[in-house]
C-alpha cells in the first residue's frame, strides 16, 4: 500500500513553460528513462512492468506487463506498437493535455516500450480532432529524430525505433483497438473478430500491442525509475498514479493527478467541492460507459477492485460529477444519443438497440412515456449487453441499467409528469430552434 491523495508523477512537467520543446524537456529530466532502458533487456523490462502493477489506462485495466508477454516474438514478422491516442470517451481529457504539454514524455515512453517489446515501429493513432496534439507530437517526433533519439540508431545503440503519427477521422469506435487497427490500415473502422488477437495478428497481420497514451508514458517512467517508483503510489491491486479528468458540477473542473485508491470524495474536494455547494447526487467514475454511482458511494477508494465491487468500473479516470439539480434521465439520454451516433453499425444489438433506446428516452422526456417503457429499456439493454460485437454496445447499457437501478423513481416521476422535470432540476437538454419548433408542432404553423 503506497501513498494516496494528490500526486505529481506523470504531470510533473505540466507547469513547465515550453515543456513540449526538447531542450526544456531534457532540462527537466527528459530522456533519462530511455538511457536506463538501453542498459536493460526486453525480458527484464517486461518484468519491471509486471512488478510495477501497471494496468492499462485506456479503460479496461488489463495488466500491461502480461499483455506485453503475450506478443508473439518468434513469427519472423515485425512487431508493432500502436499507441491509442484516440481519446474519445465522453468526460475523458487526460491524454490530450499530456500530449499537448509534455509530448516528449510519450515519445520517450514509446522508445522504451518498443525496446521492451522488441518493436522497431510504433504508430500513434491520434484522434482526428486533436489539432494541437498533432502539431506538438509531430514537432516532438521531428526533434527526437534530429537528436538521433529516433531512427536507425537510437542513442547510438544500434537499435531502431521509428514513429509514425496518424490522425484518425473522428470516430469513437476507432478507440476500440481492432477497429483502430483497421482504420490505421486504411479500412473502414470496425472492430475485428477475435481471436486471433492483436498480440499474434494485429496491424498488417503482424504481432501488435495497442496501448493507451498514459500507459505507454507510465511504462517509460517505470523502466527508467524502477517499479518501486510507480507502486509507491496506490494500492496493491491498483498501483500507481492516475491522471484524472474531473468534470461536471464541481467548482474547478479539470486535470488532476491522484494516486489510485484516493476516495472519490477527496477528489471532488480537491476540485473545489460541488459547484454552488450543491448536493452530490451521482457520478460516473470513469467516463460515460462506466455505470453510475450515487452519493453513498462517494467515499469508496478509486481503485479497479472497489469500483468493480460497487458494480461499476474505473474506466479512463473521467470522473463526472452531478448534483441534485441535474436529471439523471436527461444525462443518460445525452450519452445514449452519443453511443447511438457513434455505433459503427456492424452488429445488430448495438446498431438497432441504440436506435431504439434513444427513441424511448425521447418519448419519456417528451411526455409520451408509457408505464411499460422502463422494463422495455431494461430489456433492450439486456439484449445488447454481452451480445454486441464489441464493448461499445455494452457501454450504452451501463448508464441505462445503472440509472434504472439507482433512480427508477426519477423515471417514474417523468412518466407521471408527462415529461416535466421536478421543479428543483434544471434541464440540460439543448434542442436546436428547429427541433423545438418541430417538437411543438410550430414549424408548420408559421410561428
Amino acid at each position, binding site marked *: 500500500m503506497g501513498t494516496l491523495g494528490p500526486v505529481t508523477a506523470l504531470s510533473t512537467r505540466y507547469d513547465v513553460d515550453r515543456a513540449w520543446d526538447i531542450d526544456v524537456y531534457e532540462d527537466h529530466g527528459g530522456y533519462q528513462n530511455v538511457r536506463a532502458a538501453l542498459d536493460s533487456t526486453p525480458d527484464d523490462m517486461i518484468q519491471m512492468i509486471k512488478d510495477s502493477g501497471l494496468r492499462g489506462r485506456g479503460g479496461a485495466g488489463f495488466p500491461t506487463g502480461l499483455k506485453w508477454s503475450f506478443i508473439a516474438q518468434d513469427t519472423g514478422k515485425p512487431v508493432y506498437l500502436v499507441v491509442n491516442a484516440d481519446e474519445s470517451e465522453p468526460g475523458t481529457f487526460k491524454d490530450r493535455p499530456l500530449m499537448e504539454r509534455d509530448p516528449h514524455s510519450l515519445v520517450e515512453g514509446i522508445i522504451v516500450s518498443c525496446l521492451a517489446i522488441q518493436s522497431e515501429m510504433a504508430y500513434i493513432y491520434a484522434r482526428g480532432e486533436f489539432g494541437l496534439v498533432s502539431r506538438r507530437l509531430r514537432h516532438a517526433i521531428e526533434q527526437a529524430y534530429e537528436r538521433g533519439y529516433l531512427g536507425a540508431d537510437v542513442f547510438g545503440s544500434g537499435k531502431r525505433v521509428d514513429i509514425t503519427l496518424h490522425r484518425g477521422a473522428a470516430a469513437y469506435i476507432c478507440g476500440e483497438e481492432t477497429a483502430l487497427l483497421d482504420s490505421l490500415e486504411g479500412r473502414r473502422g470496425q472492430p475485428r473478430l477475435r481471436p486471433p488477437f492483436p498480440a499474434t495478428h494485429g496491424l498488417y497481420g503482424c504481432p501488435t500491442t495497442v496501448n493507451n497514451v498514459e500507459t505507454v508514458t507510465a511504462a517509460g517512467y517505470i523502466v527508467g525509475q524502477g517499479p518501486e517508483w510507480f507502486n509507491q503510489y496506490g494500492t496493491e491491486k491498483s498501483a500507481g498514479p492516475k491522471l484524472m479528468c474531473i468534470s461536471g458540477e464541481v467548482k474547478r473542473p479539470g486535470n488532476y493527478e491522484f494516486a489510485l485508491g484516493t476516495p472519490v470524495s477527496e477528489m471532488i474536494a480537491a476540485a473545489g467541492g460541488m459547484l454552488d455547494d450543491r448536493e452530490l447526487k451521482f457520478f460516473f467514475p470513469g467516463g460515460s460507459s462506466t455505470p453510475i454511482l450515487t452519493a453513498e458511494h462517494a467515499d469508496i477508494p478509486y481503485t479497479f477492485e472497489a469500483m468493480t465491487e460497487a458494480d461499476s468500473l474505473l474506466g479512463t479516470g473521467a470522473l463526472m460529477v452531478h448534483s441534485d439539480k441535474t436529471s439523471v434521465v436527461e444525462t443518460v439520454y445525452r450519452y445514449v444519443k452519443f453511443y*447511438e451516433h457513434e455505433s*459503427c453499425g456492424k452488429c445488430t444489438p448495438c446498431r438497432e438497440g441504440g436506435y431504439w433506446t434513444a427513441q424511448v428516452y425521447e418519448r419519456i422526456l417528451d411526455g409520451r412515456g408509457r408505464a411499460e417503457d422502463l422494463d422495455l429499456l431494461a430489456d433492450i439493454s439486456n439484449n445488447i449487453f454481452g*451480445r454486441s460485437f464489441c464493448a461499445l454496445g455494452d457501454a450504452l447499457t451501463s448508464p441505462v441499467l445503472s440509472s434504472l437501478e439507482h433512480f427508477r423513481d426519477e423515471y417514474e416521476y417523468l412518466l407521471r409528469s408527462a415529461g416535466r422535470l421536478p421543479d428543483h432540476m434544471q434541464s440540460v437538454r439543448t434542442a436546436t430552434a428547429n427541433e423545438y419548433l418541430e417538437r411543438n408542432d410550430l414549424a408548420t404553423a408559421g410561428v
Partner: protein
Amino acid sequence: MTDTVTLTIDGKEITVPKGTLLIRAAEQLGTIIPRFCDHPLLDPVGACRQCIVEVEGQRKPMTACTTEAADGWVVNTHLTSDVARTAQEGQLEFLLINHPLDCPMCDKGGECPLQDQAMAHGNHHSRFVDEKRKYDKPVAVSAQVLLDRERCVLCARCTRFSDQVSGDPFIELFERGALEQVAIYEDEPYESYFSGNVIQICPVGALTSTSYRFKARPFDLRSTPSVCDGCSAGCSQTVQARRGQVERQLARTNMAVNEMWNCDKGRFGYGHLTADTRLTSPLVRSDDDGEEPVAADWATALTRVRSILAPDGEVVPTAVLSGGRLPDEDAYVAGKFARTVLGTDDVDFRTRFAPASEGDALAALAGRDTATYDDVEQAGVVLTVGLDPEEEVPILYLRLRKAWRNTKARLVSVGASSGSLAELLWRRLPTDVGAEAAVLDDLARALDRDGDDADQSSPMVAEVADALGSVDRPVVLVGERAGDGALAAAGRLADALGGKVAWVPRRSNARGALDQGLAAGLLPGLRRHDDDTQRAEVAAAWGLDELPTRGRDLHEILTLAGKGKIKVLYLLGVDLVRDVADQRLVDKALRRATVITHDIVANATTAHADVVLPVTASQERAGTRTNWEGRRQQFRPGVAGPQLVQHDWEILVQVTGMLGHDLGFTDLDGIRADMAALAPIDTTPDWPAAADRSDTAAAADDGDDTLTADVYPLLLDNGVHQVNAPDLAATAHDPHLRLHPDDAAPLGVSDGDEVTVTGGKAELTLPVRVTPDQAAGTVFVPANSTAPDQVDNPRHLGDRVTVAAVASGSATADQPVEVNA
C-alpha cells in the same frame, strides 16, 4: 494434438474436425441455429448476432458462426438454453424494429429467412412503437440489382461476396450506426459478372433482381433442376417458371462444380427463349428466288430437307457442322446420322480452324483423367494457357480466385493475355498469340535439367518450372484459343509433373461433342477412325459393313463447299457468319452450298439458309451435358417452349426416316441405350510429340510495326442468345482494346485513349487499356462487342494488324492518324 474435437451440443456428443464452427457442428446434429450473416462460403463476420449460443464456463454467450468448437465444450443452443433463446429472440426483435412490414409486396416473401425466423422464433406483437428508418427506394446498385435499404439487415453477405469471392469492388457498407447502409461508389458502377449471387444470398428482400421484381411469388413458381448452357462451366441451376415462362434462374448448390454461385450470363440470360428473334416455325426458301426463307409447316420443311439431301434418291455430298452446344445425346445422334444416313465423316464440332494435330491431342485428352474444379482448388500451382477465365468460363475464374485466396495458390498465365486473372497472377509467361506451345516445351525442358546444366531457359521459366515441381499435382488449363500444339505440350508437361491437364473450351458441350466423336478421325467412346478394330466396332454397332472414309475438318469442308464439291452444309446450331474467322471462305461456301440449319434464334447464318428448323433451348428439353472437366450432368425441361419447335435429335430421327433409314431409336432412353453400346473404351493415347521449332523461333519477330490480334469475345457481347435481356446487357464490360505499355508508348497513347486497329480493309476504334498483362507485340480485340453491322472487324485470331492513336479533338473514328512505330 488431435485433428478432431469432441463436444456436447444440447446434450448430444459430436466429434468434428478441429476448426469447425459451432454453427456447422450443430448442423451435423440436425440443429439449425438461426442465422443471417453466416454463409458457409464466406468468412465469418459475426455481425447479425442471431446465432448466439451458451457455452458452459464462458463469460458471455457466444456467436456460433464465429466460434470454433473446442474439446470438451458443453454448448447449449436455443433448444436447451434460456440464455440462448432469449438472446436470439432479442436479436430478432432488434432486426425487426426497422424492418418494414411489406412482406406482401416484397419479392422475398415466401422464401425469406427473416420472415421464416420471425414466424419460428419471433413475437407476434412488436414492442416498437417509435419511428422506423426511412430511405428512398429502390436504389440501383447495378442495372440488374436493386437495393431497398430499409429492408436490409446489414449482414454484409453481399459486400463480403464481392470482396472475398468475386473480387469486384464498389459495393460496400457506408455510414455508421443506424444509418449504416449498403452503397456503391458514386463515380464507379458496381461492375461484376457475378452480381446476381448477391441477390440470391441476401437473407431479406433488400437486394432484388430488376428482371424478376414483382413478377411472381416463390410458391407460384415451378422449379426444375437444370444445367446452364452458357459456357462449359456446367453450373447447376434451378429454372423457375410460371405459366410456362421462365421467370428467373437461380444457382443450384453443386459443391463440386459451381458451389453456390452462377455468373450473371447464366442467371439472367434466358431472354432469347421469348425474344422476337426466336425461331418458332420452320422456314423454307422458295426455289432460287434469293429471298429470305419464309415460314412453312414441318411437312413442307422436312420434304424439302429430303429433296436437298437426296434429290435423286442418292444422298449428295454433305457435311455436318454440329457446333459445341448440342447435348451429349444429340451429339451422338448427329454423329450416327452423318456416318450412317449421310454416309460421310465430314463432321466438325469446332467453329474455328484447328491445326491438323489437334485431333490427336483431343483424343489423348478425352482418354485421360483430366483436371476438375477440385483439382484446381487443391493444386497449389495452376498454369492457364491461352485462357481468360473470367470472360470465358466465369465459374472457373471464381474457383481459381478461391484457390488464390484460400490456399495462396500460385497462378501462372502462358499466352498473349489472361484478362482479369492478371490481378491474381504470381508469374506471367507472355507469348505471341498462338505461340504458347514453345513456352510449355521450355518448361518441360527446364524440369528435366535439374538446374545443373547450362540453362538456356529464362530465369522466369526456371522459376515457374521449380514451382510446378514443388507441388504434388499442379494443374494446366488450356483454353481453346491456345495455338498449334499447345494442348499436347500442356499434356506432356502435366504428365511429366504427375499433374493434371484440362481443355477449357467456351461452348457448353464442346467436351461432349469430343467424347461423341464429332470430328473427323474421332468416333464415339474415345474410339479412333484410324484404328481398324475400333472402327469395326463402331461399324458393327451401327449395322454398317464399313464406316465412311475419314472426313475433313472445318476449313477443308468450307473450301470444298465453296468449290461445289460438298453440296450441302447441315448446321446444328452453328452461326458460320459470326463464328468463323474467314469470312470470304464462309461467304463462298454459303453461296455455293445448300444450307440446312437447326437453331433456336435467328442469326446471321439462318438468313442464308435454305431450310431453317426451329429447335428447343436447354430450358425446354431433357438431356445430358459434359462440362470442361468431362463431368456429365443431366437436365430436365423447365418449360415447354414454343409449340412448333422440336429437339435436335427428334428432327434428325425424322429426317432419317424420310431418307428411308432407321437410327434405331425414337426417344431419349433409346438414344442412351444406343450410346451405352459404344461406351468409352479404356485407352490412354500418347500425346502428339513436340514439333521441332528451331527454325520458326526467329521468324516470329519480323521487325515491322504490326501487332498480332488477340481476338476473343467478352462474356457479354452481341451474342444472339443474349437478346431480350436489357439489364444483363447493361452490365457488359465496355468494349476496349488492350496494349502492352511498350506498344502503347511509341503511339503516345495511355489508358482510356481512343485507338484504331486496322487489319486488311477492316478497322475498329475503341478505348485502349494499357496493361503489362497484354503481351508485347499483341493487341486484344473484342470480337462481337461492337455494332452488329461491323462483321468484318479484324476478328481474326493471330492476324497481323496495325494500331494507331486517334488524334485527340479533331479525329473521328473514320480518320485514324497513322503513327509509325
